[in-house]
């Protein structure tokens, strides 16, 4: 048993009306990677915010003992001085500043009145090499990919002389290769004596990297599993998270009736909207049948979202060429309105940024894409609108006090349901779901899968883009594999496996 670096004792944190944390205990040994898992809203992020001083001492009860002393952090600076550095889920980098500037933002080198830029960039380069990046620290953040940005965040933490690194969903926006690189980096740091706490939904990553796993449910610690003592398989962790055994993570579809081809694209090519010489989608042909779920697997940046959006009324890209057939008829979709009219729907991967109006109520969001069906002479029938929203709330089991509630106040899973409701109300035949379960918890995922099954049972076609291979495998009748803008494989759901998909990508 190593030395205990951090101990959080009976932490209780209340918000008006809610007990977010109830008597939580956490022990982290020096030099280990400790994973914190739990459903959305279980209190993981709140706990880390207490630790890092975002919620100052006094706003919670309980003790934080770090390195043998009781700490009373008033602000983030206090915890950072002790070497506790938190990296938040949303990247906190400024796109039009250089890596170096970002890295030392709030921690500027030199004097207050005269920043020493030479030193800044020299130091920044040093830390960049430590995380395995070869970029110059003078590169602007906007010019590097998300995966590298996440590494810059870690380098930034190192520059603050972190001894305890807290990563909140570090891989949520990364593809598998970048995720693996990041996790390996954490393992390397562990060799060098760094202690890390990682919050993650991706249980395979947790099993891969963590020495100990603490499960939080409804604001309380349920258990801590030790890699060397306990079973830390995914099923075991899920059992702790949801409080019951999840024998089947994907609901079965009973009667599968796969019909004619509903949508087909042939030789579809799309160029980047800004850099018009760059091919983003390259000669893709694919189809989806009525009553079928087609999965598109691939790495982040493979061009899947771009393919989907370009089909959806040219919502992305320039110089789009190729043929699009709907029910056997070739069609030209001029714009998104046209696409909706032809019964296509694209459910975005970025529900907060591109999907929902967070400051508007559920009912407004639900009807936005098909408002004309509720109007006469451009005047909205608000009674009908309310009924529609209520109807979808029942059907999709959205948890909310009323449909007048602003979408911004809902949890991720319920927001996703509102987004699905919006597009179901547009009455499409073909739904393209882009990462439909990103960032939502296990229970809500299951419900989303059920909705997908209901959709295809009703004769709709679903194209599901997902970066989570188990999900693609669990849900799809047929799977396409995409890599670097090209379709590199097609297989039936029955014969596909994680290995066959990955080898498809790697061999392309």
């Amino acid at each position, binding site marked *: 048993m190593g030395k205990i670096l951090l101990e959080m004792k009976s932490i209780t944190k209340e918000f008006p009306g809610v007990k977010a944390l109830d008597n939580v205990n956490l022990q982290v040994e020096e030099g280990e990677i400790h994973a914190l898992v739990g459903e959305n809203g279980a209190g993981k992020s709140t706990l880390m915010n207490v630790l890092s001083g975002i919620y100052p001492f006094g706003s919670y009860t309980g003790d934080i003992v770090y390195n043998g002393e009781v700490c009373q952090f008033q602000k983030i600076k206090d915890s950072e001085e002790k070497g506790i550095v938190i990296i938040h889920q949303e990247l906190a980098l400024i796109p039009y500043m250089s890596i170096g500037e970002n890295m030392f933002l709030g921690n500027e080198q030199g004097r207050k009145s005269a920043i020493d830029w030479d030193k800044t960039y020299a130091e920044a380069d040093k830390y960049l090499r430590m995380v395995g990046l070869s970029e110059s620290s003078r590169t602007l953040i906007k010019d590097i990919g998300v995966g590298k940005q996440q590494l810059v965040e870690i380098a930034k933490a190192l520059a603050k002389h972190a001894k305890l690194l807290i990563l909140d969903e570090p891989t949520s926006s990364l593809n598998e290769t970048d995720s693996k690189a990041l996790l390996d980096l954490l393992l390397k740091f562990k060799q060098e004596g760094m202690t890390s706490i990682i919050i993650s939904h991706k249980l395979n990553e947790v099993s891969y990297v963590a020495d100990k796993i603490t499960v939080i449910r409804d604001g309380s610690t349920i258990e801590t599993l030790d890699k060397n003592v306990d079973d830390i398989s995914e099923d075991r962790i899920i059992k702790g998270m949801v409080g019951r055994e999840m024998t089947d993570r994907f609901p079965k579809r009973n009667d599968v009736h796969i019909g004619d081809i509903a949508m087909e694209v042939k030789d579809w090519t799309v160029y980047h909207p800004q850099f018009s010489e760059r091919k983003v989608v390259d000669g893709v042909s694919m189809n989806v049948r009525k009553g079928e779920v087609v999965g598109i697997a691939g790495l982040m940046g493979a061009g899947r979202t771009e393919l989907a959006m370009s089909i959806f009324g040219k919502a992305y890209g320039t110089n789009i060429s190729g043929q699009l057939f709907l029910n056997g008829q070739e069609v030209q979709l001029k714009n998104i*309105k046209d696409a909706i009219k032809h019964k296509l729907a694209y459910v975005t991967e970025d529900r907060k940024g*591109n999907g929902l109006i967070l400051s508007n109520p559920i009912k*407004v969001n639900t009807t936005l894409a098909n408002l004309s069906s509720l109007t006469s002479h451009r*005047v*909205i029938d608000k*009674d009908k609108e309310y009924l529609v929203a209520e109807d979808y709330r029942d059907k999709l089991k959205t948890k909310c006090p009323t449909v007048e509630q602003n979408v911004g106040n809902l949890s991720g899973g319920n927001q996703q349901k509102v987004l699905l409701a919006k597009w179901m109300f547009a009455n499409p035949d073909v739904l393209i779901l882009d990462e439909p379960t990103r960032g939502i918890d296990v229970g809500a995922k299951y419900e989303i899968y059920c909705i997908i099954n209901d959709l295809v049972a009703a004769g709709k076609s679903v194209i599901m883009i997902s970066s989570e291979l188990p999900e693609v495998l669990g849900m799809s009748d047929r799977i396409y594999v995409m890599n670097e803008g090209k379709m590199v494989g097609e297989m039936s759901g029955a014969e596909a496996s994680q290995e066959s998909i990955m080898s498809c990508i790697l061999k392309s």
Partner: protein
Amino acid sequence: MGSNIGNTLKKYTMVIALVVIVGIFYIGTEGTILLPQNVNNLLSQNAYVFILATGMLLCILTGGNIDLSVGSVVCFVGGLGALLMSKGYNVVIAVIAMLICGILIGAWQAFWVAYINVPPFIATLAGMYAFRGLSNVILDGHVVAISNTTFLNVFGGGADCYIPDFFGGGNFNITCMLAGVIGVAIFVINELRARISAKRKGYSTTSSVAFIVKLVLVSVVVLYMAFKLAGYKGIPTSLIWIIVVVLAYHYFTTKTTMGRYLYAVGGNEKATQLSGINTKKVYFFAYTNMGFLTAIAGILTVARATNAQPTYGMFYEMDAIGACFIGGASAYGGTGSVFGAIVGALLMGVINQGMSIMGVDANYQKVVKGLVLLFAVIFDVVSKREKK
């Protein structure tokens, strides 16, 4: 229940603030501020603010975008009308020309904003300079008097800018009082009908207490105003225009698809685009419409003054913007209401008038107005933060 009352209070904070401020000035001016003549002046003097604030609200809804040109355009449109009438054109032609001119100016700026992506601040700042200059050019730096009595009577100018009393009530204008009573009756019946139908269909409604308080408050205020106005000369003509515009735009923003799209664009432009809505059209509409309402404000302004001058309309844009923000519109777009903007405009108007009556120096009046705007927005920001 407790939070319910809290929410209702929050929703009507600015109304409460208005009542409190009126109360303060009532004491400060020993009742003068609520004399019929002053109530009357408050409305007709600020007619332009109500109209402009309504149009400005639509622009602000699309994402905190403002229109800086409205003051200059008020002046230009007013000058154009005055010139036409002084040259002997028919009043109908003059008014139509003014409205079309306003719409064209609005569309000109809207085009750059919506389709060329010129930031609204810049596009309308350019308009602010250009139309101030053009006003001077067409008026040649002079005052152009308006003598057309039809124009003045209809748009509320000169000595006779009131709806005449059809019942011959002498010192007490019966038409005015009757209009107030009928207005309240229509309002109460409408609200009750909506509530009953909502209850029958099982929709959620506000608590009965809040509903009754709202009905009683609105009725009392309207009847009180009608009573006050009746005691002077009756309904100022400009009030009719204000009521028409405010009701029309209240309906427009709450019930129509375009109204809904204004909120949607301000709430999340990308999501709106991906819902198949032409967001450029929405911007184009907001700014073109601003031009239209600016023309109406221009008409009311020159009618009230019975002349046009190249200095008219200075800082009107700021009054309109201030009214919207005091009335709870978000500086980032997506939230706000016509009703709120009107309350904001009233609040500013009351403060102005109250201080004038109390003999506060005009320079200090500006200081107070500035502080009120600042505190209204601070309050808004802080109360939103607490909600999180």
